[in-house]
């Protein structure tokens, strides 16, 4: 879909596996959100997904291979792109938008932020973002400025820490054989 060029704060547009990702600067997120909702007709916010990339680019998750050196046994890669491309900052925030109409269009609005940075809330654009942002705050620790009620939603109110961060331990209790992969 054309028209993405005029989104305020646009850094780039990526197409991969049939999905379009629109990268914007964090500072202009609210303008971008308004533009997408008003001008481009994305009236339905499906999901806000936050992801923590701490430790990205070292060993691939769960593998025995290492970042340096070719591993011919890795499927689809011939060992050439074993190292995934580095990420700009620690957290990515993806807003999965849908233009709910006869010819639907989906797009992912993505922005990046580091630990301690805040991002604008889009509650006044899409009211569904109320609890979605609360969940991102609760589990990832991303603070949304302008959110009217940013408190924990899934964890108990007095919980310390943000469980889905990569530096938060898995918890539970040690089970036999759990040290071995």
């Amino acid at each position, binding site marked *: 879909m054309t028209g993405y060029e005029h989104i305020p704060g646009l850094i780039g547009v990526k197409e991969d596996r049939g999905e379009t990702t629109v990268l914007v600067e964090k500072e202009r997120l609210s303008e971008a959100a308004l533009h997408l909702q008003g001008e481009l007709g994305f009236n339905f916010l499906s999901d806000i997904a936050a992801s923590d990339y701490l430790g990205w680019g070292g060993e691939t998750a769960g593998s025995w291979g290492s970042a340096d050196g070719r591993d011919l046994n890795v499927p689809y890669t011939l060992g050439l792109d074993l190292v995934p491309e580095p990420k700009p900052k620690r957290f990515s925030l993806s807003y999965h938008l849908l233009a709910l109409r006869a010819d639907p269009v989906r797009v992912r609005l993505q922005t990046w932020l580091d630990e301690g940075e805040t991002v604008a809330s889009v509650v006044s654009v899409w009211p569904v973002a109320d609890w979605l942002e609360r969940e991102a705050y609760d589990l990832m620790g991303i603070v949304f400025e302008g959110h009217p009620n940013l408190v924990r939603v899934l*964890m*108990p109110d007095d919980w310390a820490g943000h*469980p889905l961060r990569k530096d*938060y*331990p*898995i*918890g*539970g*209790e040690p*089970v036999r054989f*759990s040290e071995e992969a």
Partner: protein
Amino acid sequence: MGIAEGKRLADYGLSSERLLMEGKGPGAFEQEIARMEKLVLATTLDKAIAWAQTHSMWPDTFGLACCAIEMMAVPGPRYDLARFGMEAFRNSPRQADLLIVSGRVSHKMAPPLRQIYDQMLEPKWVMAMGVCASSGGMFANYAVLQGVDRIVPVDIYVPGCPPRPEGLLEGIVRLHERVMAGVPPAYELGEEIC
């Protein structure tokens, strides 16, 4: 009454599937009964009371997750729980005898669980239905209580993810056998069970 050393439930007229295994020595269940027989000194009146308790042990509606759906299937038409006198699931813990913890207990839910347990009147029994209630199940993580016996004393554990309704009924039958044998509920047995 009690169960003397070397005797089995069958000798007292109770049924257990272990009877089908001829030549097998008293299994762990019977050994446990034998071990606890010192705590038990049942008269005919006690036996009558136990008979009454097992024949109308009303569960509490404490359905949490997937196991709750299988628990809801048990009073249904195929696995009729009414034949045990237990189809009356009480919503108020004050009126319930059996707390079937069916499903994963998160840390946020643990205080309400303990509160519900405390609100039940004695005698009360607890069944940990499913592996999540017994030991945390497949969720060895920050969010799930690793076994409900950390906060309430459990009388019977029913494994399965989720246990079939027949499995739940087996657990209920075993619990009834326990009560009929004169075994006190878990809160009277203290550390020996948990």
